[in-house]
């Protein structure tokens, strides 16, 4: 017989806030409502590439499996298309939940299993910080430099460039002061610790 691979966290070991309470507080979603109908997973375009399906992530939060959830690939593979949250009969916004889990994963210093995706997220946010909107060319350069992955998607990149999808010069928006203010406030929040 196969050895049981995991045990559910015993409630005896609970100290302070439990994982589910933390997630509920940060996301504002009532995760206990989930009755595992699997509609979220059924409609998820990235579920086939995930290590845990969206419904399993919800369930693992209920069980208090913090490390496994925050280290999972699934939270990074979510593309926030919101098909799940739109369809959920218990009105749990799973896209938003995934976002919360990504934040928590970074805050708690977990190593993301999908490094490239974190790098892309950072390059994206940096690009917006600079110009108020994404400038694809500099964002891609930054991503390539940070990830060290120079060759992937090169062909499609060239094609997009030839079609003029990569404007060479960035265009700044008018309200740059507001953007800076948003970033400052967000950073303050992060420094405070979530």
């Amino acid at each position, binding site marked *: 017989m196969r050895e049981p691979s995991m045990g559910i966290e*015993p409630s005896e070991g609970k100290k302070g806030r439990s994982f589910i309470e933390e997630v509920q507080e940060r996301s504002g979603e009532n995760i206990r*409502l989930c009755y595992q109908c699997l509609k979220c997973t059924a409609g998820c375009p990235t579920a086939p590439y995930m290590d845990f399906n969206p419904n399993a992530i919800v369930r693992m939060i209920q069980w208090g499996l913090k490390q496994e959830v925050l280290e999972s690939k699934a939270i990074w593979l979510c593309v926030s298309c919101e098909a799940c949250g739109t369809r959920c009969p218990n009105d749990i916004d799973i896209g938003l939940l995934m976002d919360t889990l990504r934040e928590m994963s970074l805050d708690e210093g977990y190593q993301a299993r999908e490094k490239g995706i974190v790098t892309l997220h950072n390059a994206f946010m940096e690009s917006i910080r600079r110009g108020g909107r994404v400038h694809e060319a500099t964002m891609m350069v930054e991503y390539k430099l940070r990830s060290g992955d120079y060759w992937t998607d090169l062909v499609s990149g060239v094609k997009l460039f030839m079609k003029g999808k990569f404007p060479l010069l960035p265009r700044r928006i008018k309200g740059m002061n507001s953007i800076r203010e948003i970033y400052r406030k967000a950073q303050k929040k992060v420094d405070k610790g979530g």
Partner: protein
Amino acid sequence: MKKIGVFICHCGVNIAGTVDVKRVAREIGEIEDVVHSEDYIYMCSDPGQLLIRKAIREDGLNGVVVACCSPSMHEVTFRKAVKAEGLNPYVCEIANIREHCSWVHQRDTERATQKAAEIIRSVLEKLRQNEALETLTMPLTKRVLVVGGGIAGITTSVDLADAGYEVILVERRPSVGGKLLQLSQTFPSLDDSRCLLGPKRVEIRGHPKIKVMLYCEVEEVKGFVGNFDVRIRAKSAYVDWEKCTACGQCVEKCPVKVPSEFERGLKVRKAIYTWAPPGDSAKPVIDPGQCSHFLDDDCAICQEACSEKAIDYHQEDRYFEERVGAIVVATGYDLFPMEMIGEYGYGRILDVIDGLAFERMLSPSGPTGGEIRRPSDGRIPREVVFIQCAASRDPERYMPYCSRVCCMYTAKHAKLLKRKASGAQPYIFFMDIRTDSKGYEQFLQRAIEEEELIYLRGRVARVFQEGDKVMVWGEDTLTNRKVEIAADMVVLATAIVPSQGIQDLAAKLRATTDRHGFLTEAHIKLYPVESPTKGLFLAGCGQGPKDITDTVAQASATASKIQSLFSQDVLSQDPLVAFVDPEICSGCGICVQVCPYEAREMDEYRGISRVHEALCQGCGACIASCPNNACELRNSKAVQVFRMIEVFEDQQKRGSADERAVHGH
């Protein structure tokens, strides 16, 4: 000559979807004595019945065949319609072309159509020989025997007694209340069982129309609907209840201690004991299998303790005869013996208990005073695993059916556990969650949301002791993950099975049971509280697993069915019974022996056998066993049956001749 009308029902698409009803109506219409043949979408509907009545009037019919569903569905309907036009109801016959034809030949319209016509032709043969019969009448005793004093039996008794009928309520235990007496709070309203039961018990105790017979069993039943003769055995309690004041001194002094059945082994009882915890002025009984007076013949402590001199070691069983018109079987349920499921460790591991034991723990009058404590060391448990479908929904090994109450009571258990034991965490293994009644789903979802219940979808594979923990191995199939829980206690939601001794009782009552021992009803939808044996009625879990809500509803339904039976002055019975040709009968007496209804007896003076028409159910056993063909069944005489068979044989001959012609032989 007969003037017969044939009416072919479409039954929506049930018949017409397979059988070419128009063609059948045309072909049958060509038969010489069929003067009227037509089809209609729903013959049993009002316009359908009017159609038949109109044809009787206009065409002067003296025989009617309705080709439709099984006679058990609508024979009565059409016979009534025929009677309303002044015809004898027994010249109306049903040709079953639904269950016997369209439903079973759905892919073959051509042959189904041929077969439908054949069935009608054969019934026409029968009808041609039918006699116009008169309904039999017999006297009716308007008293009721209710077997079982749980919530079902109590409800039926109170309903009937309030309607003015005398009720004899027989309970085999020394207290009424049944399983409900053992429960704590009940879902979904969390009413205390005592609050549900208390007022009802007061009602039956003081009711002038109800005679409660405690510690009694049905010994023998003779007779038939309207007139059953019942012999009831009052088991010897070895205590004279007339003298006993229920002071409890005898119980207190008794030195013999055995596990209490009522407390599911969580507490001991004495050899002289009351079934329920004291406090309900329940009278005690002596268990002679445990009492040292009976085992060693030396102890008389209880006798000495009794100031009323109520203890009587020589008391014997007493017998009572009662005549009743109807019998209600409300015998309830027991739990599946969980020792049989080795992998769950029940019986070996002390901290594996069943749901009823958990109910006792939750009950303020229970063995722990309402606290949740492990049986092994009395500690308050933290991790508690609940296993649903224990022995239910397991067709290969145990019971194939759903026990219906476990999903809800497990959710209730988990909820109450959280309330009573702070810091406890319930884990619930389930296959499906079935919350099919009013307010149930909301109860469950609220419990999950508010009480942090953890539901794991999958069957537990193994439960074993490790140190002072009970290890539970299972899998959560929603996440495909193996799960191991180091639990403090495991509660099994055990399958409901019919109560012990039901087969015996069913045999005495001539009631039928299914292969699990649940009493069968006459029709699952149309006659759900009637047994196929006339005069027997069902209520509660003896008929199948159900919750309190459904049990009470069924018990009241049963009471109202009996009231409508009793609303007549005499009982009328179908005259389709056996009769004897006195010229042929040799008086051998075989029929007397084979008759299951005691409807056959010897006429000693004439030396032949007789039929007691009121008792005969028309089963045909005597007819099949009569060596001289002296017995016949009214309107199913041998000549009728043979002619019916001939129709099919002729058709087969014709069919094979046609086939030969087609193939050029």
